């Protein structure tokens, strides 16, 4: 659901395809006819942003038909009656009209998922990059709870992580409300533990999310910013908003391996070492911690990211001294022993990787979490009823198309690394296109390779056309990989109120032939 798996997670897609050959039934729920549809039992091409209407409709069917896991719901959930009444509003007619799907297809996927012995929902940014991203995730969880597809091997909710260490960065405490080891800042006991270990009094106020920090830079509350290995000028929504925020800072430091579009705005640029030059660990999408190793001597006068921080800390009067990344990891293991206590470098080297929690040296790591639902029966989780809300900016006469954005197979994010592929390497796509349905191309009188202007209320870009029935009529798709076509000049700075994630997946645009 909302995962272009074969482009964004090709090796996971390979595993899914292999399993499909052995009988795994895959339903692809995605506005686009992505490659995964080729191995799917069925593709449900829902309208962008209609996920909650679909999932509530599915739950209504599952409850009405008595297909839900009654034993699990009674034992392990709360608020079932409330959910049942809430989803009754999502009648077949309403759900068909919001999602654009056929009722019989929704019925079929509802039956297949709820009646399967094991069912899993894999999702990616198609679920989270909406103004209602958190509600979307709540509804995915509601489906898993209703069917009891959680806490057993082969079931569960699988958010496929987009970056190699996005899981680890959060787990290490690079979040405004969380300390290392996935404990909340507002938990007094945890806070005290870290205060004692670090010899400081911590700021008790939860910080701002990245997207709200940009607002605070624009209005002058945040005056200094230190960016580590990120390129928000190309990666964040509404480029002119991002640029105005960064330009309003008193002081901007960018630490990176290339002079990115963002680094060009900095007051100071610090040269970091990158992958291939550093030692450490990453945490993958299934909580597996694996080693990354130094392969070659680092370029020029670059330093390890962590070493730069320690030297700066010492200059600012706080003593931070580590000889190796292993020293740092051992501090993490000590302070977050409930997750990593048993994961020494020596053991990670020997066993290739370990899935946390792994509290002690003799612990095998944890492949499946939430098993308490089935084993000890002492875990109870509430349903959270949520309602469908349409994308913030819907198409209208002036801006008649919906633009949805995402990734393509070969480039990675803002392409700062993948643009160094050898020129001889055969690729599917080497420049950005706006992907549009043949019907729309006919009306606009454009064909493959023709130049058009794509304009939103926030900006415009010039881009070539790709005509494809992968997209629905009136829906267009673009990625943000190529700096020549900064797609995020178009996207909208509307955010989920809880997660702060932006609505990359839907905004309104007009298209003019050049």
């Amino acid at each position, binding site marked *: 659901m909302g995962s272009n798996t074969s482009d964004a*997670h*090709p090796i996971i897609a390979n595993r899914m395809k292999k399993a499909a050959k052995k009988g795994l039934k895959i339903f692809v729920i995605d506005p686009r006819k992505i490659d995964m549809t080729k191995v799917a039992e069925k593709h449900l091409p829902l309208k962008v942003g209609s996920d909650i209407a679909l999932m509530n409709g599915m739950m209504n069917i599952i409850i009405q038909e008595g297909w839900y896991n009654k034993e699990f719901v009674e034992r392990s959930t709360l608020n079932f009656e409330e959910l049942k009444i809430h989803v009754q509003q999502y009648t077949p007619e309403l759900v068909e009209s919001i999602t654009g799907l056929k009722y019989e297809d929704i019925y079929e996927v509802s039956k297949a998922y709820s009646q399967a012995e094991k069912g899993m929902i894999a999702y990616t940014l198609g679920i989270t990059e909406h103004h209602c991203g958190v509600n979307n995730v709540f509804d995915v969880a509601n489906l898993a709870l209703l069917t009891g597809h959680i806490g057993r091997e082969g079931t569960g909710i699988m958010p496929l*992580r987009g*970056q*190699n*260490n*996005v899981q*680890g*960065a959060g787990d*290490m405490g*690079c*979040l405004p409300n969380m300390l290392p080891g996935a404990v909340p800042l507002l938990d007094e006991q945890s806070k005290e533990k870290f205060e004692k270990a670090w010899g400081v009094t*911590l*700021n008790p106020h*939860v910080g701002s*999310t*990245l997207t709200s*920090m940009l607002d*605070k830079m624009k209005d002058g*509350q*945040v005056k*200094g*910013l*230190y960016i*580590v*290995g990120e390129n928000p000028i190309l990666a964040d929504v509404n480029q002119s908003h991002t640029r105005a925020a960064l330009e309003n800072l008193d*002081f901007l430091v960018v630490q990176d*391996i290339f*002079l990115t579009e963002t680094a060009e705005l*900095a007051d100071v640029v610090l*040269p970091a070492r990158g*992958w291939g030059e550093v030692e*450490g*660990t990453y945490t*993958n*999408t*299934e909580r*597996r911690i694996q*080693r990354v*190793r130094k*392969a070659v*001597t680092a*370029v020029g*006068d670059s*330093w*390890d*990211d*962590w070493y730069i921080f320690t030297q*700066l*800390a010492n*200059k*600012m009067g706080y003593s*931070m001294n580590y000889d190796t990344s292993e020293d740092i*990891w051992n501090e993490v293991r000590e302070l977050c022993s409930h997750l990593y206590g048993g994961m020494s470098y020596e053991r990670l080297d020997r066993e290739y990787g370990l899935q946390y929690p792994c509290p002690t040296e003799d612990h095998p790591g944890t492949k499946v979490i939430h098993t308490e639902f089935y084993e000890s029966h002492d875990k109870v989780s509430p349903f959270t009823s949520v309602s469908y809300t349409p994308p913030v900016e819907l198409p209208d006469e002036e801006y008649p198309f919906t633009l949805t954005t995402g990734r393509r*197979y*070969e480039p*990675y994010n803002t392409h700062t*690394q993948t643009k160094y*592929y050898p020129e001889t*390497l055969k690729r599917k796509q080497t420049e950005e296109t706006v992907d549009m349905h043949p019907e729309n191309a006919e009306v606009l009188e454009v064909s493959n390779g023709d130049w058009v202007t794509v304009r939103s209320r926030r900006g415009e870009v010039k881009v070539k056309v790709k005509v494809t029935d992968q997209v629905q009529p009136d829906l267009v798709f673009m990625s943000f990989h190529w700096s020549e076509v900064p797609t995020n000049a178009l996207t909208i700075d509307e955010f989920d109120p809880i997660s702060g994630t932006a609505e990359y997946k839907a905004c309104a645009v007009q298209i003019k032939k050049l």
Partner: protein
Amino acid sequence: MVNKKEVKTTCAYCGTGCGLVLEIENDRIIRSRGDKEAPVNKGQACIKGVFGYHFVHSKDRLTSPLIRENGKLVPATWEKTLNFVASKFAAIKNSYGGDALSIFACARATNETNYITQKFARSVLGTNNIDGCNRT
């Protein structure tokens, strides 16, 4: 004489975490392949895993700290640069408090770097204004 070795590591692109074997010749990565012993990918690798390493040896890599002087970024020593950064951050913190400062952390960097990044934000800058591209 050609100095050859192989180094096992983890791919740094998507969140799958494929194990890779890097073939090194004279301190340069010359080939990358999926590691058959890796539990995640069992020898497979995608185009990014196999061909995505070329950036490491690019001539465009940053090799020195840079400070903006008269509108242009010019090379400087680490000592001078870090003193400058430390004094600027300290001045903002002293005038407006730690919450006038902020860090965008890196979801591509190691756990070790991310742990130190947030420790720096919380213990040195005195702010919880730390976040990453978790939300993008």
